[in-house]
Each structure stands twice: as C-alpha cells, then as structure tokens.
C-alpha cells in the first residue's frame, strides 16, 4: 500500500511560491469577502471550511475516516448555544465552552473507536455519533425537533456588538484563521510528521516505537475540538443549533468537502467547502435534488477524481504540497 | 537468446508447451526478462536457480498471476498470454500446485479436494485418489490447517489430479518436508510420469529433482541461462553447483 494513489491522501511539506500565492489569496479573501458576497453566506462558508480543515487533519493527515464528525460540530453548537442563551455567558466564553465540550466528546469517542481500524473505525464513529444525535433529539435542554433557537449574539469582549454584520464577520474570520493556523502548525510539527507516517504505514510507525494509539487519539481530539469550534461559531452566527448539525448527512458532507477539495492538502478543504456550500445555495430551490447532486459528486470524486481539486492542481503544477 | 535445439534426449512427442520471450512485471519491477523453454508431452523438466531468480514467477506468469506480462506462451497450440487467468487452466489443461501449497484453511480436506473444477476427461476419481493417498481419506473431514505438512502437500497435488489436468506446475513441493515424505513424493512423480503427465518442477532440492527430470533449465535474473539434459547431468555437476551455490 505504498504507491501514491493507494493510500488516503499524501503530501510533503516543501514550501514554495505557489503556497505563498494561495496564502495571499486566502488572506485577501478573508479581509474583503463582505465586499462582494453576502456576509451571512461568507460566515457560513468559513464555519464549514474550518470544519472541513479539522476533518482533513484526521482523514487526510492521519488516515482515519471518521463518519461521525457531525457529533462534534453539533455538540459544539448546542453547548455554546445553551451556555450563551440560558447561562448568559458572553459569546466568546460560550464558544470556548462548546469547543471544550467537543474536545471531551472527541476524547471519549476517539478512545472507543481507535480500538478498531479502517472500515470498522468509520462504522463505529458513525454509530457513536448517532447516540449524540439521539441525545440532541431527546435531552431536555436541546429543544427536540425544533433545536435551540434564539441564541443571542451579544457583545464580544463586552463592547464589540456582534449584531453588526461586519463585526460578526471579522470575528468569524479571526476564528477561522486561528483554527486554520493551529491545523497548519500541527501538520508541520514533528507531531504532524508522526501522524503522516502512521497514515503511510501504521505497522512501521509502531515498530519505530511510536505509541500509535496515543498519536491517533490526540489527532482525533484536536480534530474534534476544532470541529466543535466551527459548530459553536456557526450557532452564534445563525443564532440557532439544530438537529441537522448532528445528523449523519452533515458528517457525510464534511467528508465530501474534504474529498472534493483534496485529501491531505492544506487548502483543499477550504476550496471543497466553498464548492459544496455554494452548490447547496444554488440548488436549494430544488429540494431533494440537492442530495442527488451531492451523491453524484461523491461518486464521481471517488471514481475518477480521488486527488480532489487542489490535489489535481498540485499535480498539474508539479508541486507536492499545497 | 539461444533457441533450444531439437531435443535428442527424450522420446519424440508433440510439443506441448512452448514459452518464448516471456517477460513479467510486478508493479514497476521487471522480474522476467525473456524466458524461453519447451516441453514435450510426457516430459518432466525442472526450473533450477537461486531464490529470487524468477522460477516461481515463471509459473505465475504462465498462469497470468503477475501484474503485466508479454511474450508468448503456447499450450497445445493455444496462445494463452492474453487470456484471463480463469480461462488458462481450462484451455491448457493446467494444474497448479503453488508454493506453500495453497491449502484453504476454511475448507475441509474433502472440500479442498473437490474445489478445482473439472478441466477435461481422464481425471482421477476420488476413489483412485484416496487409493493413491490413503492418509487423505482418514483426515478428509478435518479442516485444511489441521493436517500435517506432508498431508497438505499430498492434498495440494491430489486436488489437481482430480481435474483432468495433463500439465502439472509444481512449485517447491518438497520444501520443509521430512526425508521420508520427500521419498514418497519422488515415487509419486515417477508414477505420474509413467501415466503420461507432463510436469514442470520448481525445486530447491536438487537431489530430488535430478532423479526425475528429463531436462533442467537454470534460471538467473529472470532469464534461462543454461539447459542441461538429464543424461548429461554427471558431466555438468560442476557447472550446476556454480549456478546454485551462494
């Protein structure tokens, strides 16, 4: 399983000019997006892009396919929402609490799921996330089918009014950038190198003396926490948390974003999220056809486009890391 | 590559198998670089050589069990180089006994025996097989992994005798077996030769092979580098030892 297409995702870390260009585009986009796209849409985009990047840390850089990442996204959303709305916490504290909750949940689910590998890991995470979904449906504070509504945006640091769209936007952009940098740093740290060696060849990583289980678990927790951060931020932006956030289809969508953008690439998940979220907006009038289109993209990606958009681009430009 | 001259050592028979310029690849690595050899009906030949020389790959390439191959393999006049693996056994009446025997652990001895499909007329009946290998009848309800190595080897050969295969490809059948069993196998090969089977032996155990074979092909680095007739063996020992010594 060592040749390039047979393992899930792959890259190395040589920086180059193209990377700088992509960084520049990303920062420029973050700064200027409200000038040319609808602010709420831009914020939704950034939340999902962060979610996809967090997911990619696990699938693309560690080789673990979690089919239950909606649990962390949703848990972050519900907990932040509840903390802000019912306990009256300020927005930032609520978001951090949601993130922490997702991290704890990630610890529990990861600790359980890591006992099995590959395809079983995917099924186990899916099943465990379903427990969280039913909690979302049945627990007294979640609002059942209606979800948690009317979460106030409040004031950041006590004086920045998040009800101002631009203030809200730049807050979300900052959250995204911080999350993105954390992931970037993780990937390029010695820790990230070990993750990649686990992805390439787990038995070899084991024989080199790495505590593979521990590394996988830490990666899982980081990924879960950042997914929770994305969900929590989303709940403040939209002022609600709903069962959709916890649903398996959300887990599927984040996989698609990552796959479409390019597994194991740095900017791929952002591009993937941009594509999928835009598509959902464009097709939202078509009802269930959205699902058909999403499914069809999945099929095409898996069959003929396994490198994803950024992965293909990197191949065309003959660079190894984007 | 020297075209093997018409053989004078074996009785004249029709050419059953001819392999020409056989190349084989596993992924990117080029393992066989143009193997040539011929086999007449009723002959026993061995493929000798060091580990990794390409002997097993030669058999596997004939069966289409490599990633890519080129050249020509003709069995009974049929070109089989481009055929999918599952048609080759039928067309060539080929019986394959792989390295490590290939006994199925999840199948009983009898299920293992009955597994390969019938290829043509004249295969041995189950009764005949149990007469030839009485041990197998005793253990026929055990699973494939709960019988001795010798019994496994018997089973691996027995199951291809049932199918009506006439050309047997036997890969390292003596490996890891006690001398007394190797002796039995030797008698069995002699017996099969008497019955008119054509046999290719891939062997490490040269003493075992030398007494049985009409001809020996020495393979090195994916090529046939020498051909030694069975009758000429005494005079060629020194040469052979040089090929096979490490």
């Amino acid at each position, binding site marked *: 399983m060592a040749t390039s297409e047979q393992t*899930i995702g792959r890259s190395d870390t040589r920086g180059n000019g193209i990377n700088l260009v992509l960084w520049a585009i990303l920062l420029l986009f973050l700064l200027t997006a409200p000038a040319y796209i609808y602010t709420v849409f831009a914020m939704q985009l950034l939340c999902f892009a962060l979610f996809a990047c967090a997911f990619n840390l696990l699938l693309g850089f560690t080789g673990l396919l979690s089919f239950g990442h909606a649990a962390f996204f949703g848990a972050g959303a519900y907990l932040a929402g509840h903390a802000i709305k019912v306990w009256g916490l300020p927005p930032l504290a609520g978001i951090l609490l949601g993130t922490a909750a997702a991290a704890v949940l990630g610890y529990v689910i990861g600790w359980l799921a890591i006992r099995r590998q590959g395809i079983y890991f995917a099924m186990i995470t899916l*099943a465990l996330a379903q427990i969280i979904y039913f909690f979302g449906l049945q627990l007294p504070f979640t609002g059942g089918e209606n979800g948690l509504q009317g979460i106030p945006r409040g004031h950041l640091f006590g004086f920045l009014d998040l009800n101002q769209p631009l203030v809200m936007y730049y807050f979300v952009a900052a959250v995204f950038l911080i999350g993105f940098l954390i992931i970037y740093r993780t990937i390029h740290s010695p820790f990230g190198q070990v993750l990649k060696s686990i992805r390439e060849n787990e038995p070899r990583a084991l024989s080199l003396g790495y505590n593979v289980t521990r590394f996988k678990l830490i990666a899982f927790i980081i990924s879960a926490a950042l997914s929770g951060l994305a969900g929590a931020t989303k709940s403040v932006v939209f002022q609600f948390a709903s069962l959709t956030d916890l649903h398996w289809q959300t887990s599927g969508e984040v996989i698609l974003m990552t796959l479409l953008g390019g597994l194991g690439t740095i900017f791929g998940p952002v591009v993937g999220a941009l594509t999928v979220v835009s598509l959902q907006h464009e097709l939202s009038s078509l*009802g269930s056809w959205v699902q058909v289109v999403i499914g069809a993209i999945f099929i095409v990606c898996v*069959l003929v486009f396994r490198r994803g958009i950024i992965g293909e681009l990197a191949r065309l430009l003959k660079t190894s890391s984007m | 590559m020297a075209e093997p001259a018409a053989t004078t050592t074996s009785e004249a028979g029709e050419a059953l198998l001819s392999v020409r310029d056989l190349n084989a690849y596993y992924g990117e690595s080029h393992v066989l670089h143009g193997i040539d050899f011929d086999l007449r009906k009723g002959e026993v030949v061995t493929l000798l050589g060091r580990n990794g020389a390409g002997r097993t790959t030669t058999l596997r390439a004939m069966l289409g069990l490599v990633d890519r191959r080129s050249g020509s393999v003709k069995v009974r006049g049929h070109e089989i180089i481009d055929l999918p693996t599952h048609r080759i056994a039928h067309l060539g009446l080929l019986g394959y006994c792989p390295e490590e025997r290939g006994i*199925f652990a999840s199948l009983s001895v009898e299920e293992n025996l009955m*597994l390969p499909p019938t290829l043509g007329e004249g295969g041995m009946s189950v009764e005949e097989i149990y007469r030839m290998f009485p041990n197998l009848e005793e253990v026929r309800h055990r699973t494939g992994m709960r019988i001795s190595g010798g019994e496994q080897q018997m089973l691996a050969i027995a199951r291809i005798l049932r199918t009506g295969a006439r050309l047997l490809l036997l890969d390292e059948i003596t490996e890891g077996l006690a001398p007394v069993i190797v002796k039995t196998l030797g008698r069995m090969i002699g017996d099969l030769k008497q019955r008119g089977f054509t046999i290719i032996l891939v062997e490490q155990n040269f003493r075992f092979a030398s007494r049985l074979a009409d001809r020996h092909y020495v393979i090195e680095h994916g090529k046939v580098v020498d051909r030694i007739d069975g009758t000429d063996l005494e005079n060629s020992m020194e040469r052979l030892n040089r090929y096979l010594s490490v």
Partner: protein
Amino acid sequence: MDVMMRLILAQGMLGLNNGVFYAMLSLGLAVIFGMLNVVNFAHGALYMLGAFVALILSSYLGPWIGLDALHLGFWPALIIAPIVVGCFGMLIERTMLRWLYKFDPIYGLLLTFGIALVLQGLFSNYFNSAGTPYPAQPESLRGVVHLGFMVFPKYRLFAILFSIVVCFLTWFVIERTRLGATLRAGVENPELVQAFGINVPRMITLTFGFGTGLAGLAGVLAAPIYSVSPLMGANIIIVVFAVVVIGGMGSILGAITAGLALGLIEGMTKVFYAPAANTVIFFLMVIVLLIRPAGLFGRQN
C-alpha cells in the same frame, strides 16, 4: 401469567420482528464484505429500493404503462423485487465498485455512501418522506394469531419465520455446499481459485448481487409492516452497522445471531426504559468494544 411477563414477551416478539431485518441486512453486509472487502453503505438504500419496487408493482406500474387494472401483489413482489435490486447491485459492482478494489477499502464505503444519497434523494423527490402505506398485504396473511401470551399479527409472524428460513438457507449454502466452499476459498485466496479455472470476477459480481438481493428481499418483507419511505434505509443502516460491529463481520452465523439478539434486546428495552430504545444497540456496541474489540464472533486480527 403476570402483566409484566406478558409485556416483555410481547415486546420481545416485536423486537424479534425488527431483529430479522437486522439479521438479513447484516448477513448481506457480511457476505459482501467477505468477498469484496467493501462495506456497502448503500445497503440501507437498497433495502428501501426493495420496498419501493413492491409498492410500485402494486400501485404505480399499471398506470405508468397504461394498464390501470394491473396490480402485482405481494407474492410476485417477493420474487421480483429481490431480483431487480440484485441486478441493480450487480450493475453497481460491474460499472463502479470494480475499479476501486485496488485502492483503500475506504473508497468503497465512500462510493456506496454516494450511491445511497442518490437513491434516497431520487425517491424523496417522487414519494412522501413521511411514508406511503403498502396496500397489497396478502389476504391470506391478514388477521392475527393467538400465541398464548399475546395476539400477534399473522403477517409479522410470517415475516419472522420466512426471514429466519432465508438466513438459515444462506448459512447452509455458504457453509455446507460445494458452491459455498468455492466462495469461502475465493475469500481466502482469490488468486489461486482463479488459477484453478474459476471465474472469480464473475463470482464477485454474483456475490454482490446476492447480498444486495437479500437487502431487497428484506425491503419487500418490511413493506407491509412499516410504511414505505425514502428514509427507511438511512434509519436502519446505521443500526445495522452497529450490529455488524457487535457481531464481527467475519462470521455468517455471527451476523444472523447478533441481528436477532439485538432486535430482541431493543424490544425489551421498550418495556424497561423506552427512551433508551433508540440507542441501546449503540451502547451495547460500546460495551462490546470495551470487552471484545473484534466483536463477539469476530476473529481478532
């Protein structure tokens, strides 16, 4: 008999009713996984497809082709639907799955997930998500049977017995016949089986067809019990995944037993603590993961 006991037995029977569907679906998944090393995420969607084929045969096909009087009932559906679904499965294998065997098995899961979304989306467009009742339950299976501790719908009893027979037959064919021996050998060493002259690619296609056909059959059997809904497959497949993790995918008998037992347990949970009925199977999965990570009947490797 006291009330509690009756209640337990009654819920047990209903649970068993769900259990036979879990068993049939996890059996199909196990058969497919054994041969193809693919976890078929579309299995739930194909179960839904089976139910819809039955519904279409009874209510829609006639009007579509201009024969308003044509209503193909339950018995024809019981034969036609699994064949239709099985053929659809083989088409999927031939045209798509086949190209992924050389890659990480995760891609097979993702591909079939995409197929599941497409199927679910398509049926959601044309049929009510809340479900359509299946109108053609056979006359001979209407009414109830008295079981002593409860009255039980005749049809449900039929579905339970029929499914158990199908599961047993599948087990018998795989474990006790020559055909089954060939399949098991193909799982163990496809290369050698191929060298013996058996057409393994065709065997793989047929196996996938059979496994998906089982899902279709389960769908037809489920149609008269639950209403036929585009979402019915998605709801059941995740539970069946948990069943498969609990049973271990290596064993045919394990898949059947785990399916039946977990259906029963789920039913019982309704008696003791109803809110947990949705999640009890997932929690059992957690416990099994803690004690025997390979699953109750799985081989550790």
